[in-house]
């Protein structure tokens, strides 16, 4: 979707405020939210792509006004409600009114450390990769209303395949169709002027990680 989350190239957000040091969490609840999201995603009720989608679909004003961990919290609360894991009444009361339903997995403390390693999203390919390193490719001018990882600033632009990154779960299909389908992933590199016009800094090159359905051979 052409949402507020798709920020690449937007103007007006101002200077980057980078303090020399930050605590790991700015408040105790931030750590709880991070960990709750990790263990609830590990139940298999949703995956990382669905999780992202539920942040992207926050109302734009709320998205901009919320801190990172507040977004994570609202996403978790909404997903738990949508999946029927909890009720609004239970959240309001702060207590369960009855037992939960049976989940595929509940993460015990003894298995929590394993969640700290990033999951591998490789899938066996259905066909050989269509493109090779060095190919000139053009990204599609596409505007799906569902989830996509092709950012707006890089649609309809021509670049070069720099790397083939393997075959991965295709996020668009995960969210739109509920299936984990394999697609080849490529690093596609664009000249800054291709993205930002002839006056852009000629020393800048920008890459995206593009799934095969996002690109076609350049004409």
């Amino acid at each position, binding site marked *: 979707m052409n949402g507020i989350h798709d920020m690449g190239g937007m103007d007006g957000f101002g200077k980057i405020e980078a303090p020399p040091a930050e605590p*790991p969490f700015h408040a105790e609840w931030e750590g709880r939210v*991070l960990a709750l999201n990790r263990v*609830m995603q590990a139940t298999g009720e949703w995956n*990382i792509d669905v999780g992202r989608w539920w942040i992207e679909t926050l109302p734009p004003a709320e998205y901009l006004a919320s801190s990172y961990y507040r977004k994570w919290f609202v996403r978790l*609360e909404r997903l738990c409600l949508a999946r029927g*894991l909890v009720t609004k009444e239970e959240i309001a009361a*702060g207590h369960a009114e009855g037992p939960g339903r049976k989940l595929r997995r509940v993460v015990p*403390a003894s298995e929590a*450390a394993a969640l700290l390693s990033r999951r591998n999203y490789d899938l066996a390919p259905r066909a050989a990769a269509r493109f090779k390193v060095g190919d000139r490719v053009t990204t599609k001018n596409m505007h799906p209303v569902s989830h996509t990882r092709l950012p707006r600033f890089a649609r309809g632009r021509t670049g070069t395949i720099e790397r083939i990154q393997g075959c991965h779960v295709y996020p668009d299909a995960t969210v739109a169709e509920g299936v984990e389908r394999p697609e080849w992933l490529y690093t596609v590199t664009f000249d800054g002027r291709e993205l930002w016009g002839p006056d852009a800094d000629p020393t800048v090159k920008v890459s995206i990680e593009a799934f095969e359905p996002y690109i076609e051979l350049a004409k």
Partner: protein
Amino acid sequence: MADKHDDHDHGHGHDHGSELSEMQLRVRALETVLTEKGYVDPKALDVIIEAYEKRIGPHIGAKVVAKAWTDPGFKQALLADASKAIGTLGLEQKVGDHLIALENTKDTHHIVVCTLCSCYPWDVLGLPPAWYKSAPYRSRTVKEPRAVLADFGVTLPADTTIRVWDSTAETRFIVVPMRPAGTEGWSEEKLAGLVTRDAMIGTGLAKSADGAAP
């Protein structure tokens, strides 16, 4: 816990403080419900939080970079397949697959961003700093990376290629900054002290030799 919360409120606006209190209550309510339902073991949460507070941070990436600076064979392996190369170091926590190391040179400076969310190599750098997840960084880096670098006090030669990597998939990137001059013969441990988090994101450079801890 309460102390930590209070500490945070010092120097901040009153409204911010009340928002935090509201969030404390909401998060506690949801955690309680999920725990009573049997979906969550609160001790599992403690394990994850403690790991990010105490164990997983940019010191891991710094160790990797320092080794790459001193061991050409390791550097070659790291640039070919960073996940695999780091796997040989016997770190406490396994690093995820598809980690890609990007080597800065005199000619090319790499900088990493996630314009769509905030993808970040947590397993080698720890929790992302707030600015990495902020709208200014996510919006500007792909369009005006030199101005972004200026916000970090970094000015590069006008003819250096600036190579921006937008983390739009499940690949992750760590920048190997240039080794500072005057560090010949230094131990890996001492060199690691020069490798900052920002240098491994690409918004900074490694500290100079005289910036090292004595």
